[in-house]
């Protein structure tokens, strides 16, 4: 089961599996059917439909039927991303979420705390509070000049 679940990745951040991301709240097998409870990162996240379909497909490939249910409560938090997931994310070029109060400071551009995933400098600044997806903000490094995504803290 875990093996099949971890074969499904986030379509937007393909290095992260659904387990790394912490969106699987429950997966149980009953009478030969796999029941999965999936929680969305953001309400309107279009990746959720894709993840649901990918899960069903992954289980059908090992001859199992999966039923996916979307649950809203408790609401997903960026704290649920595993440490392994955070490391993979950084290697992929996305800065990891900061604590809630630091997150507000960096999103208002009042402190320089976000570490550039390319050169590790914290001499970075906010370009846009919203990035390529709702869960990320756009930053730029003032040392190596590379733009990058920052995964926002959601609590």
């Amino acid at each position, binding site marked *: 089961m875990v093996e099949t679940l971890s074969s499904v990745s986030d379509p937007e951040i393909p290095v992260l599996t659904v387990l790394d991301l912490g969106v699987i709240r429950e997966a149980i097998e009953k009478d030969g059917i796999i029941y999965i409870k999936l929680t969305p990162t953001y309400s309107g996240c279009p990746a959720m439909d894709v993840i649901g379909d990918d899960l069903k497909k992954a289980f059908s490939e090992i001859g199992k039927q999966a039923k996916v249910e979307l649950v809203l409560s408790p609401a997903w938090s960026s704290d649920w991303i595993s440490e392994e997931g955070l490391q993979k994310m950084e290697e992929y070029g996305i800065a990891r979420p900061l604590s809630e109060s630091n997150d507000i400071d960096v999103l208002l551009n009042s402190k320089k705390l976000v570490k550039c995933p390319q050169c590790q400098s914290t001499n970075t600044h906010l370009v846009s*509070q919203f990035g390529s997806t*709702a869960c990320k903000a756009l930053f730029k490094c003032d040392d190596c000049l590379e733009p990058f995504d920052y995964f926002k803290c959601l609590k």
Partner: protein
Amino acid sequence: MSNLYNYILTIADNSLILAQRLGELCGHGPSLETDIALTNISLDLLGQTRSYYQYAAKLKGEDKTEDDIAFLRIEREYKNCLLVEQPNTHFGYTIGRQFLFDVYHLMLMEKLQNSPDETLSAIAKKGIKEVSYHKRFSSDWVKRLGDGTEESNQKMQEAINDLWRFTDELFFMTEAEKAMAKEGIGIDVSTFKEKYYKEVSEVLKEATLTVPENKYFTKGGKEGVHSEHMGYILADLQYMQRTYPNMQW
């Protein structure tokens, strides 16, 4: 139809129509960053709308789906307030509309999260996290434009002056809202009216803008009597389902 069903739509339709308005800016925002931000906000609102409509569809039964509620109602059946249907006249106007709505929206979600209705509470808890970001974005821009150049200040002031008359309707209680508040499931929005105007005024002052003193307010949207803009919004929104019934992506 039940009060709960109507109550859900009163909240959800605001999100749908505002999402549609913001969606119009996809590819047309004044800069890449603001374009992405506004459409991301649109997406959050649309996600929230879906959760509400799925719940409403379940209550209605009769094999109704969220799509029936979104696409197959007539204008008088939409319960959104007049504020959210106002057009994207210019960026300052879009920001003003967003700001005046976000402050209200967050206060509503903060109350709704304590509703004994588990679904509404779950949607609100999820929504709070997103709406906090929206409010931060819009109030930040109100300050930047208000406290910006002479022209941006003037445009922001005109936008606030013009949109002000729609703010009172946010606190108008429909029959469904009154009934649900009485049952303890819905929120008596009048309880945070004062808090709303206080917070809005504080941001406007920080933005070096003048708080309008206009006491002429207009309402109607929440009871289905919309402004001239609504028909155009629905024509755009409903076109596909009306032309190709039951089509799916």
